[in-house]
């Protein structure tokens, strides 16, 4: 089976030309943005661009975490539910247990890490397919969120609410997005753990025979996915100034789509954070643009589907590879 040529092999330093050449979806994104800019003058307004940045934050952060999992040839359906559980649990700990406010966000991230680790352990040691382990966690985490909150929204703790605020002229979600992206890219590109993820996803047997601790790598990718999901959940809660028990419903498909649009392969071994960001932006720009253009909601769904297909087509044409 051919695999895409966008492995990490070419990831040396940052190089715009190289970046574009390896990101077919980037071309799709640019075309999309140009079309939107022509169709609606409001698209390029500063305020709208800030909006797009803020709107992409949640999905991009989820997708960053998902990138680890997909690079290692897994899939994580639980991210939306874990986002909700983490945000809700940390809010409840602050409100109910009197957890010091400073620890709110840390508590949320710990809950996310735990949920992710459980999924990872089920996949690595319980040998469940990642699809099933994460589907089970998707259901369990959503249920626990409802149990904790009794299905009611909870006021966002002040630390979480701050995640929805502004830092000077820049909305905090954009700041979080950038930091999360840099961290994720660093882990994937420069650390030994990141290399192991590519190895496990590229050829699990070879990884094992080379003495790579395959199981621990699998646990790690899900754990990281859980942490990023928790962060995304708290950003969402901050933006809404309220922790909704329904946060992230259906977000898993968006997150996976962003990763795949960004050039990763669900069969593993391939994928980059920069690509994932492009993928998330494609989704955010379509939605933003269709709202600006006042396309009827029903037709919007049709257009979104077509545009997603076209965006990925750009990538595929470049690589001429068959992947099913």
């Amino acid at each position: 089976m051919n695999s895409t040529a966008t492995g990490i092999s070419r990831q040396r330093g940052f190089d715009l030309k190289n970046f574009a050449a390896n990101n077919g979806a980037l071309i799709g994104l640019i075309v999309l943005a140009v079309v939107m800019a022509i169709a609606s003058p409001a698209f390029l307004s500063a305020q709208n661009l800030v909006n797009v940045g803020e709107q992409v934050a949640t999905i991009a952060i989820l997708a960053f975490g998902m990138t680890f999992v997909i690079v290692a040839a897994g899939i994580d359906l639980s991210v939306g539910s874990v986002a909700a559980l983490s945000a809700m649990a940390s809010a409840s700990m602050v409100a109910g247990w009197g957890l010091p406010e400073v620890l709110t966000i840390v508590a949320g991230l710990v809950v996310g890490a735990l949920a992710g680790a459980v999924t990872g352990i089920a996949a690595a040691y319980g040998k469940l397919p990642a699809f099933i382990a994460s589907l089970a966690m998707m259901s369990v985490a959503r249920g626990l969120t409802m149990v904790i909150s009794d299905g009611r929204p909870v006021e966002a703790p002040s630390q979480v609410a701050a995640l929805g605020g502004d830092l000077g002229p820049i909305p905090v979600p954009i700041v979080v997005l950038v930091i999360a992206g840099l961290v994720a890219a660093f882990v994937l590109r420069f650390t030994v753990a990141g290399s192991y993820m590519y190895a496990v996803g590229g050829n699990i047997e070879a990884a094992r025979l080379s003495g790579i601790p395959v199981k621990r790598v699998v646990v790690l990718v899900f754990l990281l996915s859980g942490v990023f999901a928790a962060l995304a959940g708290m950003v969402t809660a901050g933006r809404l100034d309220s922790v909704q028990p329904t946060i992230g419903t259906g977000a898993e498909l968006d997150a996976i789509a962003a990763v795949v649009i960004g050039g990763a392969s669900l069969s593993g071994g391939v994928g980059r954070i920069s690509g994932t960001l492009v993928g998330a932006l494609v989704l955010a720009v379509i939605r933003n643009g269709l709202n600006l253009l006042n396309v009827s909601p029903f037709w919007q769904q049709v257009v979104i589907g077509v545009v997603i297909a076209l965006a990925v087509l750009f990538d595929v044409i470049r690589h001429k590879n068959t992947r099913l």
Partner: protein
Amino acid sequence: ASGDSAPKATLALSTLSNPFFADLRDGAQKAARTAGIDLAVVNAQDNPESQLDQLRTAAVNGSRAVIVNPVDSDAAKPAATAVMDQGIPLIAVDRGITDRTPGSFIASDNVAGGRQAATLLAGLLGGAGRIAVLEGQPGASATRDRGAGFLEELRKHSGLQVVASQTANFDREEALDVMANMVQAAPDIDAVYAHNDEMALGAAVALGSRAGKDVKIIGFDGGGDALEAVKAGTLSGTIAQSPAELGRQAVLQALRAIDGKPLQESVPVAVTTVTSKNVDEFMNKAKES
């Protein structure tokens, strides 16, 4: 696309996968056409974050008034702020916004509706009976309010007892399966209270010939299918809102805003308990508006 052409307004809906909101939209669009407003409609598909994004967009796309049907009252706060900060008049419809006072609030009261449903059931059952509840999507505000009002009122009737309460996510298909399962465990129920008409109709299918006869079914919303079912007797009643009227009133307020007139702070739209007795009358009235 602003300025010279017709004044623009945005209607941000929580969902369109439910005929209730389609009716609301229709009422709004009809009124907008009459008034000569260019009304943009967006659909958040029940995701509060999408709605926030959509309202942010509405705040920069030249809309001169924004009508929001919040996905969730709490979660709508920042969205409301985003619009109001731009100095754009905001009108909330169907659900309010916690801690924010929009220029105008047009709604039927879900908690009150829940109470009315309990009162109706108490009457139908003669004050005593076993009730199954079909809950809406867990965590949705309509689920909470319609459930809370109902249970609150029910406490006043010691003979009425909820023996089973399960969710069917506001969905007709799911309600069919869930109801079929519930009656296996609790075959001797006397009534079903569903948090919306869709689930009530699903329950009616599951109960078959028992529907409306030895098991009374009460829905919520007053949509077309449900009214027909009330007429046919399979549903014993529905707590009818007038979605088209909600939409119409919202656009009328938007028009006032565009014309620079002061808004009406609160526009109550009546919730009607519809049973076989008043269904014809109600349907005629709905047709007129």
